[in-house]
């Protein structure tokens, strides 16, 4: 074997250069020990890419290990490009969620678009055809032109990419909170379907097998994007703009079709997308998974620009590329499939016996690492965790003592304020930009509690939802982590689905700060408890640290992506009322809690108090009750009670579907001993609003399951409007007035202010 020598023109390896690569002194020492010499510039780039937080999970791996990952349905847990679960009849679902926060903060349109592209590839490289996209978005307040620009750009980026590829975007969530000023969160989730026997893994195998680079050419896009994703957002990021990657959904669509054809063809043994840290991470990970050596020749990689160095080729994050391990002798068949789709495939390396990870430029060796050391030697850190004083202080605020505003003497006023709060208001402005019906499987699209897609050829359907309330997590990360899981579970259960498994995207600040790492550990512990209680294992996910801006850290936001299964199409249930005359039942109980509520945030500008308690046994029994009642055919509609509390939930039931509006007559006198605002707007967990033609049966099923349930009113005609009697007061509002507040709030902000709307609507334009 020849020696690894610096390449002519390589910069000298200095302490400053090592620091610039985001590596600590001790990490650098580790590399030198691993190699038995000083790394070359190319090697430094490789390690820096693989050992940065985004690829290595060095601060999170030990904590993530505590999550439950096994279950009867799980075919593939964490460790692959996406998790896979069986849903019956030989059908499996692959799904995963991933963040693209930092790129979206710099260039919202391309950042969001390439985020969608990346997660799509993670799913179709498992052999699954993508059937649905979801997302979870966080922005600062829409009062700021910059935030409106980010919101508009991200939504357009998500829409344009998914629409073009032809995968429906069916659900998601959007929250506005000034905690996300300067650091929006853009999490995209993809769901794919496959037959169990079509699963393929990203594991290099078979000495002599060729490695091919497939799809788009490699340019200088996003070099060091991965380390960039692991830095705090600051002025310095502004200067990093050329790193922005541009998405090409057209090529992605071709790559999707070609990859599925390739996988089904039997000519390949493994396939992996080139995502963060591009060729480097995909090749090193595939080799490590297969426990084999690989050699890659950068001079054979098809490039877009002349004069690219091995360093650049290895670290480029050009989009829409795949790494494929083919069967030896089948290169031509692989090429033919790609040519059919107007794509190229070049052999750039092969699987070798020798346990090394080797990169050459023609004949010259430019990088070489022993075995899978690159992956296995990666440092793992257990850093100190301690709850921040600010969090404790916030939680300890006596929010029950918050003085009511004069205007609150009329609860109708409060209701209207909350209906128009952007976090609660209808997100139709955004999701009408997403094609939600392509592929004709969408039974319930955006706007319901969870999306529902039928599974063709069976009588089943799947339900999907992303959820997280970052405010709760800020106030109490363990409770907040639990609630993220149970809320997503309740949402899918409301459609008639049994919660089956989750994926998660953990968005936090800088983990080397003890108060942030405390949030992380506690939130993961909460997720763990809830997943065990509900028997919904974790099949994968993503961690995004360093979500901070000059104004501080974001709310810790562990987003849960939940998958549920509906065993018969007949059981699919919608969230809005169906028939006037139906009886309205509340499953679960009201409490005096208002801590962490949207009411406090919107009406009083306050984030404080303890978040609502989360009783996991109750949540499990609630879901069992709901599903039993739905299967018995006695539930006309079911709607989860969350942001804004019971009054908002009921208002949504009458007018969230503009094509089918009702009135409702509600009496909450049973809770007159509690504070009125807690009854109306408190966010007690474990509640679902049901409408039924056979309320007695619902009550009977609830009683048998030990779940509190009570008739709270009846569904009336649209013209009757909404009446809620509670605490000796009467809240009365016309359905259309409530609908206008709810449906027009976001369009009013985004369209009616012509300056901002126009600026944002113009492609690729910056304020």
């Amino acid at each position: 074997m020849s020696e690894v020598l610096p390449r002519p023109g390589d910069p000298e390896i200095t302490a400053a250069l090592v620091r610039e690569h985001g590596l600590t002194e001790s990490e650098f020492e580790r590399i030198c020990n691993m190699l038995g010499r000083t790394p070359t510039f190319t090697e430094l780039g490789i390690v820096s890419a693989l050992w940065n937080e985004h690829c290595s999970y060095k601060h999170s791996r030990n904590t993530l290990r505590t999550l439950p990952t096994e279950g009867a349905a799980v075919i593939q847990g964490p460790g692959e490009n996406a998790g896979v679960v069986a849903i019956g009849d030989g059908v499996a679902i692959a799904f995963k969620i991933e963040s693209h926060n930092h790129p979206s903060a710099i260039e919202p349109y391309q950042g969001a678009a390439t985020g969608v592209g990346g997660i799509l590839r993670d799913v179709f490289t498992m052999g699954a055809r993508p059937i649905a996209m979801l997302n979870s978005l966080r922005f600062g307040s829409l009062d700021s032109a910059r935030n409106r620009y980010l919101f508009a750009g991200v939504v357009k980026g998500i829409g344009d990419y998914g629409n073009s590829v032809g995968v429906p975007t069916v659900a998601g969530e959007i929250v506005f909170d000034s905690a996300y000023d300067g650091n929006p969160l853009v999490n995209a989730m993809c769901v794919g379907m496959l037959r169990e026997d079509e699963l393929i893994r990203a594991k290099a195998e078979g000495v002599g097998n060729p490695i091919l680079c497939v799809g788009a050419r490699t340019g200088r896009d996003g070099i060091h994007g991965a380390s960039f994703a692991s830095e705090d957002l600051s002025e310095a990021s502004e200067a990093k703009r050329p790193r922005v990657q541009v998405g090409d959904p057209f090529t992605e669509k071709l790559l999707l079709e070609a990859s599925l054809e390739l996988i089904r063809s039997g000519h390949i043994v493994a396939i992996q997308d080139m995502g963060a840290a591009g060729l480097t991470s995909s090749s090193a990970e595939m080799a490590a998974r297969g426990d084999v050596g690989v050699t890659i020749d950068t001079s054979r990689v098809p490039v877009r620009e002349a004069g690219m160095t091995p360093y650049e080729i290895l670290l480029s994050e050009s989009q829409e590329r795949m790494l494929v391990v083919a069967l030896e002798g089948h290169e031509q068949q692989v090429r033919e499939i790609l040519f059919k789709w107007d794509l190229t495939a070049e052999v750039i390396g092969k699987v070798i016996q020798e346990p090394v990870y080797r990169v050459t430029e023609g004949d010259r060796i430019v990088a070489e690492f022993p075995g899978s050391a690159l992956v296995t030697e990666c440092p793992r850190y257990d850093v100190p965790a301690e709850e921040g004083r600010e969090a404790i202080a916030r939680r300890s605020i006596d929010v029950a003592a918050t003085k009511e505003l004069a205007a609150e003497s009329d609860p109708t006023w409060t209701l209207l304020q909350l209906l128009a709060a952007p976090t609660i208001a209808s997100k139709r402005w955004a999701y009408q930009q997403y094609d939600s019906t392509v592929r004709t499987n969408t039974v319930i699209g955006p706007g319901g509690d969870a999306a529902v897609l039928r599974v063709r050829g069976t009588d089943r359907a799947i339900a999907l939802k992303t959820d997280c309330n970052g405010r709760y997590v800020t106030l109490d990360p363990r409770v907040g982590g639990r609630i993220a899981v149970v809320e997503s579970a309740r949402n899918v259960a409301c459609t008639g689905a049994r919660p089956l498994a989750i994926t998660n995207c953990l968005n936090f600040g800088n983990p080397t700060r003890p108060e942030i790492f405390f949030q992380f550990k506690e939130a993961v512990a909460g997720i763990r408890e809830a997943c065990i209680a509900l028997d919904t294992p974790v099949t994968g996910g993503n961690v995004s640290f360093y979500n901070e801006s000059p104004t501080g850290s974001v709310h810790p936001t562990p987003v849960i992506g939940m998958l549920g299964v509906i065993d018969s199409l007949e059981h699919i249930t919608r969230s809005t009322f169906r028939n006037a005359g139906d009886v309205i039942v509340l499953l679960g109980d009201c409490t005096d809690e208002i801590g962490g509520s949207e009411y406090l945030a919107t009406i009083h500008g306050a984030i404080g108090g303890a978040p609502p308690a989360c009783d996991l046994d109750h949540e499990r029994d609630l879901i069992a009750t709901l599903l039993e009642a739905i299967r018995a055919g006695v539930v006309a509609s079911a709607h989860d009670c969350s942001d804004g509390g019971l009054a908002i939930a009921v208002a949504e039931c009458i007018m969230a579907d503009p094509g089918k509006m009702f009135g409702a007559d509600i009496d909450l006198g049973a809770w007159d001993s509690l504070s009125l605002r807690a009854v109306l707007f408190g966010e007690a967990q474990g509640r679902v609003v049901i409408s039924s033609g056979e309320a007695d049966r619902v009550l009977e099923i609830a009683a048998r399951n030990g779940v509190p349930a009570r008739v709270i009113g009846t569904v009336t005609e649209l013209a009757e409007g909404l009446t809620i009697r509670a605490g000796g007061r009467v809240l009365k509002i016309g359905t259309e007035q409530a609908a206008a507040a709810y449906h027009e709030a976001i369009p009013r902000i985004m369209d009616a202010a012509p300056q901002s709307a126009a600026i944002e609507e113009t492609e690729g334009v910056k304020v």
Partner: protein
Amino acid sequence: MKFGVVTFPGSNGDYDACHAAADAIGRECVYLWHKDHDLKGCDVIVLPGGFSYGDYLRPGAIARFSPIMNEVVVHAKRGAPVLAICNGFQVACEAGLLPGALLRNASLRFVSRLVTMRVENDSSMFTHEYYKGQILSVPVAHGDGRYTADPDVVARLEGEGRVAFRYSSTGGDVSDEDNINGSVNGIAGIINAAGNVLGMMPHPERAVDPVIGSTDGLGVFHSLLDGVTA
């Protein structure tokens, strides 16, 4: 009767169109590859929705030069039916099978929702199962659906009854409010002079099954069944 759905690179409604033909009306349906020169004996050609060639340059501009389009044009000239949906409508306009062009929505935003449209022509081979004035609920999903043509072309379309569908309220009124993309006269679909090419932005193939929300698109397929003999 046999359906052929063209797959251009970037088409994504091909699958839905084929399902509509095969599942909803039980007819044979095959995919036609854009590089082929053979319509495989199909009676009805569907130019499906999607983003052929990424909608780069102008939607439909590049796809119209696909080899298969030569055969589609010959098929249309023979008077045989071509159903051009969404991106297919854009391709058909670029290829000169239909007059006019489809521009960026007036809102400058993609629009995906269920719309209501009024049946204007109830005698064509695509629409005779409907009655004039019937209100249909059908999904749209497009960013470039603003139908535009020279005033004299529009006058001819209107005068000859070749406007097939018009965006309307649920009550059948036509107003700017219901004109989801700013099309001239609220035009949602048009028919060529010979009556055998229908172009429409809404997706009838996504409205053929009660479980996904609407069956109002079935009429287009049923009309074809009754009106054309294989």
